[in-house]
C-alpha cells in the first residue's frame, strides 16, 4: 500500500488530467446542449428535426467507439486530432446529446401559462425565452445536469485507451511498476469518488441558489425523470 502512496505525484497528475477532461468536456457539452436543446423547442418542424438527428445519433453511439473513430479512423482520411481533442470532442458530443434532451424537455415543461403571460406583456420571442422561460427551466435542468456531469467524469476514464495519461492510465503505470494491484485500484477508485462528490456538491449548491430564486423548497432525492436523463431513449418531460 505504501508503494502506491509513494506514487502520489503520478496519481495527482492523473487526477488533474481527469478533472481537465471533465471541465472541457462539460463546457462543450453545455454549449451543445443549450444550442440543440433550444433548437428542439422551435415551432418549425425542420428546425426541430436538427435537434432530433443530433440527439438520437449521439445518444445512440458509444463514447468509446466515437473516440476510437476520431482517433484511429479519421486520420486515415486526413483528419488528425490530438488525443486530448478527440477525447473532449467525443465526450462533449455524447453528453451534449443527453443534455440537449434535458434542455428541450425542461423548457417545454415550463407551464404554458407562463408563456401566455409573456405574450400578454408583449415580449418578443427572444425576451420570452431569455427572461422568463429559460430562467425557470434552469431549475428543472440542474438535477439531471448534475447526473450527466458525473457520467461525463466517469466516461472520461476511457481516454486511457487512446493513450491519454489520465487517472486510469496512471493506475496502470503504477500497477506495473509496483505490482500492487489491489491498492492501486482502491486508491484511484477513491480519488474518482472524491471528484464525483465534489462535483455533486457544486451542483447541489447551484440547485439551492436557483430554488431560492424561484422561492421553492428544494427536493431532496432524485426523481425518476432526473434518473432517466442519463439513459439514451429517455424522453424528458
Amino acid at each position, binding site marked *: 500500500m505504501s508503494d502506491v502512496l509513494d506514487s502520489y505525484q503520478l496519481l495527482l497528475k492523473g487526477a488533474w488530467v481527469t478533472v481537465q477532461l471533465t471541465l472541457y468536456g462539460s463546457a462543450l457539452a453545455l454549449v451543445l446542449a443549450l444550442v440543440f436543446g433550444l433548437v428542439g423547442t422551435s415551432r418549425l418542424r425542420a428546425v426541430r428535426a436538427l435537434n432530433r438527428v443530433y440527439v438520437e445519433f449521439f445518444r445512440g453511439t458509444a463514447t*468509446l467507439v466515437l473516440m476510437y473513430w476520431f482517433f484511429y479512423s479519421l486520420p486515415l482520411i486526413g483528419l488528425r486530432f490530438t488525443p486530448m481533442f478527440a477525447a473532449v470532442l467525443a465526450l462533449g458530443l455524447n453528453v451534449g446529446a443527453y443534455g440537449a434532451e434535458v434542455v428541450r424537455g425542461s423548457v417545454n415543461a415550463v407551464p404554458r401559462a407562463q408563456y401566455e403571460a409573456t405574450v400578454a406583456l408583449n415580449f418578443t420571442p427572444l425576451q420570452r425565452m431569455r427572461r422568463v422561460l429559460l430562467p425557470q427551466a434552469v431549475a428543472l435542468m440542474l438535477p439531471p445536469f448534475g447526473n450527466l456531469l458525473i457520467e461525463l467524469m466517469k466516461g472520461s476514464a476511457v481516454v486511457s485507451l487512446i493513450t491519454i495519461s489520465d487517472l486510469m492510465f496512471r493506475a496502470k503505470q503504477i500497477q506495473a511498476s509496483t505490482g500492487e494491484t489491489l491498492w492501486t485500484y482502491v486508491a484511484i477508485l477513491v480519488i474518482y469518488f472524491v471528484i464525483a*462528490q465534489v462535483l455533486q456538491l457544486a451542483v447541489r449548491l447551484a440547485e439551492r441558489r436557483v430554488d431560492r430564486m424561484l422561492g421553492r423548497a428544494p427536493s431532496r432525492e432524485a426523481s*425518476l425523470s432526473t*434518473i432517466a436523463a442519463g439513459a439514451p431513449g429517455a*424522453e424528458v418531460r
Partner: protein
Amino acid sequence: MTVDWDWSYTGDILPDLLKGLRYTIIATLAGYAIAIVLGMVWTLLRRTPFAAVNQAVRWITEFIRSTPLLVQLFFLYNVLPSWGLSLSSLTTGIIGLGLHYSTYTAEVYRAGIADVPRGQWEAATALNLPRSRVWLDVILPQAVRRVIPTLGNYLIAMFKDSPLLLAINVAELLHEAFEVGSKSLMFLEPITLVGLLFVAVSVPSSILVRRLERRYATY
C-alpha cells in the same frame, strides 16, 4: 478530402464483426439480468429498519455509481484472481456491467416507488388494507408502470457501455474491429461499421422504449 472506402475489405471483415456482436449481446443481456435482480436487492436492503445496513448500502451503491465502470472492470479483472477467483474475462465483464448498473436500477426502483403519489398510501391506509396488500395491490403495480421505460433505457445504456469490455480482452464488437484493423492497418472501415452498428441497434430500440413510455404514461 477524399474518402477511400474499401468495399471488398468491408465485406471481408463483416463476419469477424458479427462474431464480436454476439459477445456484445451476450454480455449486455447477462449483465442486465444481474442488474435487474441485484438492484432489487439493494432497494430492499435500503428499506430495512436497520440504520447500519441502510447507510452501508447507501454508500456502497453511491460509490459504485460514481466511479468509472472501466476502473471497476480492471479492478475485478486484476484483483479477483489474486483472491483465488479465476473467472474468464467475459464472466468478469458480465459481473462488472451487472454490478455497476445494479446501482442505477436500484435508484430507478427507489424513485419509482417514491413517485407513487402520497394520496395512494393514504387511501390504502384509510381502507385499512394490510401492509402486504398495500404493496402488492396498490403501490407496486403503479411503480412498475413508471419504471419500465427507464429500465428499458438502461438496457440500451448498458449495450452502449459494453465496448469497455475490450479493455479486459473480451472479444466484443469494438475489440474485434480493432483487431482486424490492426492486422491490415485499415481502421476506417471496421470502426465506422461498429459505430453504425451501435446506432442501428440503439436508435430503433430507444424509439421503441419511447413508444412504451407513452403507452405506460397514460392510464
